[in-house]
């Protein structure tokens, strides 16, 4: 009756980008504000 799926914690893209010194570039290029703009539009519709 109960199905358990084991999950593994992985290194995130953020951590990998940080280690490769690319995080700042990424955040400048793809800020969260884009997501919020989309969310607003989506909820309006």
């Amino acid at each position, binding site marked *: 009756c109960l199905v358990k799926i084991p999950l593994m*914690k992985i290194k995130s893209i953020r951590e990998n980008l940080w280690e490769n010194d690319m995080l700042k570039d990424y955040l400048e290029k793809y800020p969260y504000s884009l997501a919020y703009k989309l*969310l607003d539009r989506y909820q309006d519709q």
Partner: protein
Amino acid sequence: GISLEPMRNYLDLAYIGIISIGTPPQEFKVILDTGSTDLWVPSIYCVGQACADHNVFNPLLSSTFRGSGRPISIAYGTRQMSGFLGYDTVKIGDLVDVGQGFGLNVKEPGKFMKYAVFDGILGLGYPSLSVEGTTPVFDNLWNQGLLSQNLFAFCLSSKEEKGSVLMLGRVDPSYYTRNLNWVPVSKLLYWQIAMDSVAMNGKVVACDGNCQAIVHAGTSLLIDPPNSIRGIRKKINAQHFGSEHIIECDAIHTLPDLVFTINGVNYPVPASAYIQQAALRGCWSSSEEYVNKSHSTNTWVLGDVFLRLYFSVFDRANDRTGLAPA
């Protein structure tokens, strides 16, 4: 088919499960994500370095695959997945989901996917978010009579490898203490609920008098709406860094809990949880750029930071979420 899942944030996906697709099975590491609804994996038709580093699905090797020829596009928060729709048997744990629709990715959403440890995403959001005409994995499991109850639950561990689990069809009470506090879902898209307030040191610092929060397994951070960040940032003396904020790591020992009140119940989150420590960066994400817009969402995202502390149940039968100390 087009699906829009704006809250999906690739950057912080942190928990994966193993599923297989096809006959014989082809294995994939997928993010189990309540902030989206579709299943997609890279395919052999995908070109580029990002796909080369991941497992790709080969429909030619599966005797149960049915192609639709239908192009699909899934727009996430900042990027987009493009491919086509196919149907095949998906195995998740011991459950065999026959005729499951899924996206075969032909173009990875950006070269940064090269840095992703996972291959694809399995969404557990509401069907209204999914690509039109497809049935999400969880709905198919339920429709095919494979689950005893129409719900699933997450227990997320902070340990690197083991201890985290997704429960399907029933809840194991040994994973939480006290009682589950149930909160109705306010919008059947994400697992979105009403939140009463966010407080520090007994004072409300955000979400004064009600706001919305998305209970979001699959994204690692607490994300606060842009219009609430200023007060909290001031309180913890965080400095602006791109669209995020950084803070001295020592502050972890002195900063107070953030207390989320949901349906009259307090859920404290200590600084050691809400400050992400990696070298000298941390804190939570926001978008200053959007603060001054006249129309701004007031939706919080309670990601893995929150869900590592609180066991979470996603009850599709009653459209409610249950939370209890993990």
